[in-house]
């Protein structure tokens, strides 16, 4: 279902932003945006999403202008790179080339190689003009280029270890807490985290990325290409690829069990599940689960692939809701079978819209007319005039400031989802009374 065939009202940003998201997850990386100045403002936002101390943001832009478009921007690129190398004491410089230099044919690779030799710093050249696609494309280009440039296959020695890939490719504004929970589970299972691509990751970790025993992708949205690349080039198995991420009771149990099974730690995994589920039950015994609000309540989900699959399972299985519509913002082929298998298993038949833009979501919500929606600030405003009174704001962009990262994955994540769901329902009800 697509309302507009010749234009779109997009949720996602461009490849340049996606690449910025990936590289700003490296420690002490300087970002050089080779483009007109506006693109640097976009790229700069990625630092916030990666939780980088804003006083330590290392970014500069070649600020291409009309003359550069006519005569070429290579001199400016070289000049800016050298200036950055001198001014910032960075471990790596990432060049993000936008639409303009790509179209005019600046030879980004040659210039960066030349400057790299001169300044003695690794420079990652990423040609990520916005016309190459959405931020998902940019994330994939950046992760793969990073691994190709810095990592190499190596011997695996001390016990089981994994790389955790693309944890930031998620619409959870507090995704770092998801990563933290996954790390604690791995630790309990005796599995070492070899490298995270990328979240506060030292450049040296990327160089060691070829030494892991397995890759775990923490996103259904992006990161598949680099996992496949490492599987073929470095012989690192890409595990848990066919099951939903650990969101909600059932999916968390399945995910932890699968992880335990892969590493031969079934008993430990069982303990984690048992402890987590008991905690949930105990908490809800104290705080109450108003199931009567949710039972057979016609609802909808408008979100990213990473969070929506597990959420769909959770609200159907545990909250007894009736999901009538699922709109996925940017859908890649790898994750579609996972969603479809969940739908089949739950014996439900919601309308599913892949690659939904805002115009399509508006039309789908109007058509299906659910009573509520799991979405973002955008859906809050879309629903306002449709008689859909409750929007549970879980996904980015949200209408609140959070100083604490909170997970949606795992057991604390389940409670957080419930907290938001119930609180948003209450505040909508209060607005209704007014």
């Amino acid at each position, binding site marked *: 279902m697509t309302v*507009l*065939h*010749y*234009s*779109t*009202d*997009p949720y*996602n*940003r*461009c*490849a*340049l*932003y996606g690449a910025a998201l990936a590289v700003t997850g490296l420690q002490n990386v300087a970002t050089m945006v080779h*483009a*007109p*100045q*506006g*693109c*640097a*403002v*976009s790229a*700069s936002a990625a630092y916030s999403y990666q939780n980088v101390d*804003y*006083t*330590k*943001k*290392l*970014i*500069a*832009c*070649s*600020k*291409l*202008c*009309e003359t*550069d*478009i006519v005569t070429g921007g290579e001199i400016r690129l070289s000049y800016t790179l050298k*200036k950055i190398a001198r*001014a910032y004491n960075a471990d790596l410089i990432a060049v993000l080339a*936008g*639409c*303009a230099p790509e*179209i005019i044919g600046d030879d980004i690779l040659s210039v960066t190689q030349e400057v790299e030799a001169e300044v003695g710093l690794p420079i990652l050249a990423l040609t990520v*003009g*916005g*016309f*190459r*696609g*959405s*931020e998902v494309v940019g994330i994939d280009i950046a992760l793969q280029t990073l691994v190709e440039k810095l990592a190499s296959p190596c011997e695996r020695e001390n016990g089981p270890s994994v790389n955790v890939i693309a944890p930031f490719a998620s619409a959870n504004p507090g995704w770092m807490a998801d990563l933290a929970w996954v790390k604690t589970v791995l630790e309990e299972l005796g599995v070492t985290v070899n490298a995270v691509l990328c979240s506060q990751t030292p450049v040296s970790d990327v160089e060691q990325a070829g030494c892991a025993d397995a890759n775990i992708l923490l996103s259904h949205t992006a990161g598949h290409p680099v996992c496949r690349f490492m599987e073929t080039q470095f012989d690192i198995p890409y595990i848990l690829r066919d099951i939903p991420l650990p969101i909600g009771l059932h999916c968390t149990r399945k995910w932890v069990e699968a992880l335990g099974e892969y590493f031969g730690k079934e008993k430990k995994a069982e303990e984690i599940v048992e402890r987590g589920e008991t905690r949930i039950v105990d908490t809800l015994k104290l705080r109450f689960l108003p199931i009567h609000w949710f039972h057979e309540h016609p609802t909808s989900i408008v979100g990213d692939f990473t969070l929506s699959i597990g959420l769909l399972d959770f609200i159907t299985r545990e909250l007894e809701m009736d999901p009538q519509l699922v709109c996925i913002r940017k859908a890649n082929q790898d994750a579609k079978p996972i969603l479809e298998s969940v739908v089949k298993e739950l014996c439900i038949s919601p309308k599913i819209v892949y690659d939904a833009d*805002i*115009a399509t979501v*508006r039309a789908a919500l109007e058509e299906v007319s659910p009573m509520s929606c799991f979405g973002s*600030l955008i859906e809050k*405003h*879309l629903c*306002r*005039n449709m008689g859909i009174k409750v929007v549970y704001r879980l996904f980015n*962009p949200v*209408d609140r400031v959070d100083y604490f990262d909170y997970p949606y994955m795992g057991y604390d994540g389940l409670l957080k989802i419930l907290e938001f769901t119930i609180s948003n329902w209450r505040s909508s009800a209060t607005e209704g009374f007014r």
Partner: protein
Amino acid sequence: MDDSLVLFRGSLSELLEKVDTLQLSHELPLSHETPCKFWTAYWTICGIENSIPLVHGPAGCASSAKDLRYFNAEYCGCPYEMTATTDINEQMVIFGAEVPLRDAILELDSVYHPALITVLTTCSSGIIGDDVDAVVENVKDKIESEIIVIKCEGFAGDFRSGYDEAYEQLLSLVRPTGKVMEGYANIVGARRGPEPLASPGELPGLFDIYDGFGLKINAIISARCTVEQLQRAGDVQINLSWCTDLGVRLGEMMEKRFGTPFAKYGMPYGFTSSIDFTREIGELLGCERKAEKFIETRVKEVGPYVKDLREIVEGKTAIVSMGPIRAIHISRFLSEDLGMNVVLHNIHPYQIKERKKVIQLLLDYGVNPQIVITRSAFAFGEMKSMLTEEEDLRELVKEEPSDVIYFGSSYQFPGVPLVNVDNQESFPHVGFLGVKRMHGYIKTALKTFERPRSQLYWRVLH
């Protein structure tokens, strides 16, 4: 103060000359994040109701800029309205995207029937050479919506030029009937769409004066307004400047095209400016007596506040650090009304270069403050420059023989009374109402300046 720290010291007119003759570099540091021409063009038109901006470029340009439409919906009481994009991809870059653009316009018109479609070009569509004007010309008769094109490729000019380009094109929507709407005015020079409901900024200070003439506002160009209001904009009795910088360009264009009298002086900070501002409107409306009567009332009301302040701050030094045009305007209040010695800190030569016309206008009004530019204006690295700026400020304060009051944002803390002009609740600063507000804020600053800087904030920043 160490001479090597000071890059320029002199009057505004001297700075203008130095920038004009290229004796001072007007390049911003490459680490300084500035929006591009496309963004500012988008901001200018994003508050027009029932309009669809159609970004002819990759989807990323649209999705980055349209955060402002979320803001409008969240804080300004506007419904969420779409921003469409042709989503130019690799294939379109090679083969051109004129046909997709045409189809997009036709489709948006037939599906949504907006009052206005604004086609905004981007780097990609500009470089590949799509003839956007021709496409629009060809579909114009086939659609019911109004349609305009704004050429705002990110590389095609400084960010300021996006406002000008957008204003210029918005004027093509104006349909003057030749019949003047007596008692109606436009406010010109709005630049970021609608004002937040909770904090309407300077507008209440301006409305106070407009109300004195019984003026009704047809459109704020271009905040939240409708296409119908824009179409009628050529029939008003007078155009009133809001931001002197952006307002002057638009007001003069409208004066030339539609013969609408234009009150040029915007941002009337202080007593004298507010009086001049009111008189200028009165003269243009032929209501001089009404103006004088209104001024008389306000002088009676506000005069004591000015007198009170002058007694306290006369002879002291004001160091002002904020946007250039605002700083220049506020300098008039501080020097003429309050008798202070004013120094504007770090008006970047770049800002002068881009605003030459309006700076000349202010010089013509006799406003010519002293300016000091220190090394921090050119420091590479955003946060580093903030720290250097504070160090430079402290040096400036030290060398002043008289007591200093700092007017700027509380991001800086030079250890003297600090009038925090960024405090949202302190607005309006302009007009007679603004004088009262500034009175309160200056008095507070004088009373509380010995309180130390927040250790928490200091540790966060430095």
